[in-house]
């Protein structure tokens, strides 16, 4: 029997759990833990420059690998700084364990130095949280936390640890449990067979089917099965922003992303569909536009691991609660069975007409390439993403921040594989891209990792350039620079008659090339289209270097298509500044 202190238990439990990295920042309340990590722990610790970045890095790591990301922060400001990252992970259902230090047990509630009620502050943005009361509970609690974070609908779990429970001189028996069972938590293991049979029937009876797949397909490792199902039936597929890569982006059956900035053909096909198979998607307001007008002729089959997501916004005709893998496997089986019995299913001629219609939409308003307005020779943002796609052979991990650049990346970089597109979809957190890219690069050091960003977002966590220097994380930062907060400006152009309230920096932006040099990295600025591809290649040729490609783009470009709101339906879109459906 081994006796360990609380701090040592944490270090050992993370090893026993097979954790690859801890992202964190030390401070008073976690010093015993850090000392234990320092003395004896095989798990490397990545020292970020701000706790928000620790959570985003762990988040990026988790999204890319499918394994929970681990964060260690101190009490008070360490914990509150982590909040935005926890909320980001919560909204996008990312498995994460956050260990936060707390003041000593006897000081709790006395407004002690660096005390904050972390359990209270994080309550609405965690899947669950634990407050440690007894050191000997730590191993069991950590095991439970990993179990909760990574099963069912994944999400962040916080463990708040008072300092005195980690002190080195008080040792307890350590046994890391192999499994845990919880009477109050048991996510569905499989879908309801009767429902799946009904779904197969409805799916095969469809004349204008659509498969609408979201981030749950990626989280649940269901991409292959989804692709198999779609190909077997020759049904069109659209992905949500979170679901990009769940179905191969360059495949003919893929209609692109749907929603507010979804592709014309994807939104049109959704609106006119008679049967929607929603898998691991949650009918977010950025997808549906006005809910009352959402896809009026469609029956909805909704598969999700989280029963609370089903019929939350759009009523499902056939709800199926279960893990995407097991449900899709069973659904595929039922579809095959039904087709064996009746080879006329699905109705091929109806499907042909449906595809004809989709191809018409596709050719009428595909993705725009080239110069849209006027004759300026500025680079268009879309061209930057296309260049990134070519230079990386479409095989990079791409993280993004939030804004126009995020939408351009989502539209113009077709992802053929899951887990390659890593962005803050639900919370929309600016400052996510760079730390997330660090997490991805640490997980996959031999892969290309690009962070598509803008000069607004990058400055929200720019301090992480120092972390990248310390750990030699050679990510490539592609800065779509228009000298505006682009998405804010777009809305101000469209709804506020071009009054750019606080969306410009005037002349206050740093010289990014010099800044990169100061941080020990490489900065390249491009302002001519002719130089773009060369500079992009140069950036990726510098294998061991973080390269910041500062691309001056046309500031007047907007992201299109764009849903017309309020009161619009899926099919109501702006297609350019002066063209609408």
């Amino acid at each position, binding site marked *: 029997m081994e006796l360990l202190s609380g701090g040592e238990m944490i270090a050992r439990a993370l090893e026993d759990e097979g954790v690859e990295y801890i992202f964190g920042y030390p401070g008073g309340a976690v010093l015993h833990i850090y000392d234990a990590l320092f003395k004896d722990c095989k798990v490397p610790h990545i020292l970020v420059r701000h706790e928000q970045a620790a959570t985003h890095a762990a988040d990026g790591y988790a999204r890319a690998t499918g394994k929970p990301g681990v964060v260690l922060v101190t009490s008070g400001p360490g914990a509150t700084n982590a909040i935005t990252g926890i909320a980001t992970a919560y909204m996008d259902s990312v498995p994460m364990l956050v260990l936060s230090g707390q003041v000593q047990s006897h000081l709790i509630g006395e407004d002690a130095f660096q005390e904050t009620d972390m359990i209270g502050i994080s*309550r609405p943005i965690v899947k669950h949280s634990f407050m440690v009361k007894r050191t000997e509970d730590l191993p069991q609690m950590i095991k439970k936390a990993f179990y909760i974070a990574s099963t069912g609908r994944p999400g962040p779990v916080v463990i708040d640890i008072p300092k005195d429970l980690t002190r080195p001189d008080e040792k307890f028996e350590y046994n890391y449990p192999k499994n845990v069972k919880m*009477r*109050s938590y048991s996510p569905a293991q499989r879908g309801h067979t009767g429902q799946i049979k009904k779904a197969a029937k409805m799916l095969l009876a469809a004349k204008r089917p659509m498969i609408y797949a979201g981030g749950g397909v990626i989280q649940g490792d269901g991409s292959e099965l989804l692709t198999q199902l779609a190909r077997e039936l020759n049904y069109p597929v659209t992905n949500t922003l979170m679901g990009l890569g769940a179905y191969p982006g360059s495949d003919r059956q893929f209609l692109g992303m749907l929603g507010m900035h979804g592709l014309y053909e994807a939104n049109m096909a959704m609106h006119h569909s008679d049967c929607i198979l929603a898998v691991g998607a949650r009918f977010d307001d950025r997808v549906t536009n006005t809910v009352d007008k959402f896809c009026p002729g469609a029956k909805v089959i909704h598969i999700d691991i*989280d*029963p609370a997501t089903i019929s939350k916004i759009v009523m499902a005709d056939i709800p199926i609660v279960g893990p995407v893998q097991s449900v899709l496997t069973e659904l595929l089986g039922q579809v095959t069975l039904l087709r064996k019995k009746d080879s006329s299913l699905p109705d091929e001629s109806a499907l042909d007409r449906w595809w004809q219609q989709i191809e018409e939409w596709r050719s009428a308003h595909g993705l725009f390439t080239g110069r849209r307005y006027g004759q300026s020779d500025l680079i268009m943002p879309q061209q930057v993403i296309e260049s990134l796609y070519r230079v990386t052979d479409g095989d990079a991990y791409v993280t993004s921040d939030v804004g126009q650049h995020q939408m351009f990346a989502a539209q113009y970089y077709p992802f053929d594989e899951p887990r390659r597109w890593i962005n803050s979809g639900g919370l929309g957190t600016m400052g996510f891209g760079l730390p997330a890219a660090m997490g991805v690069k640490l997980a996959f050091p031999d892969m290309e990792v690009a962070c598509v960003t803008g000069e607004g977002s990058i400055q929200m966590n720019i301090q992480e350039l120092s972390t990248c220097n310390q750990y030699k994380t050679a990510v490539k930062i592609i800065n779509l620079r228009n000298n505006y907060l682009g998405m804010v400006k777009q809305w101000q152009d469209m709804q506020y008659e071009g009054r750019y309230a606080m969306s410009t920096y005037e002349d206050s932006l740093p010289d990014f090339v010099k800044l990169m040099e100061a941080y020990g990295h490489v900065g390249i600025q491009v302002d001519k289209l002719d130089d773009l591809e060369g500079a992009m290649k140069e950036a990726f040729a510098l294998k061991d270097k973080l390269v910041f490609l500062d691309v001056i783009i046309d500031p007047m470009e907007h992201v299109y298509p764009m849903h017309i709101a309020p009161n619009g339906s899926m099919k109501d879109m702006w297609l350019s500044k002066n063209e609408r459906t």
Partner: protein
Amino acid sequence: MRRIISMLMENEPGALSRVVGLFSQRGYNIETLNVAPTDDATLSRLTLTTVGTDLHIEKLTKQLNKLVDVVKLVDLTEGAHIERDMMLIKIRATGAAREEVKRVTDIFRGQIVDVSPNVYTIQLSGTSDKLDSFVAAMAEADILEVVRSGVAGISRGEKVLSL
């Protein structure tokens, strides 16, 4: 429609705040709330009343069920059930009112549990409606203080909420 939702939850610190927090987070109201340990010391029984459409309540119960600390949940209003709310009410009882207060208390089958020269403290239990009616019947009297337990409820017959 008024609903009585009753649940067993882990008797853990913070469990109650998760349940209560969910209501404000998701825009629901709690009308009454009652929580206490059960015969099993590891479990608390929480009963609350709220108002909402069927769809609202379905969404709400799904969210409540998702809370890791909530072990089991039932909407008692879906079936036959017994509900009890308990009230302690302090009423000024002097002169002619003294007799009248006692008379109404008897009609409602309440008990006077504390007496002072000027004040009666009355205990009354029953459905929330009954308690409301009692308070209404005392409208003429001088009510000094009212405290209610909130609704506790249980299903009729064989049906039980247990592990």
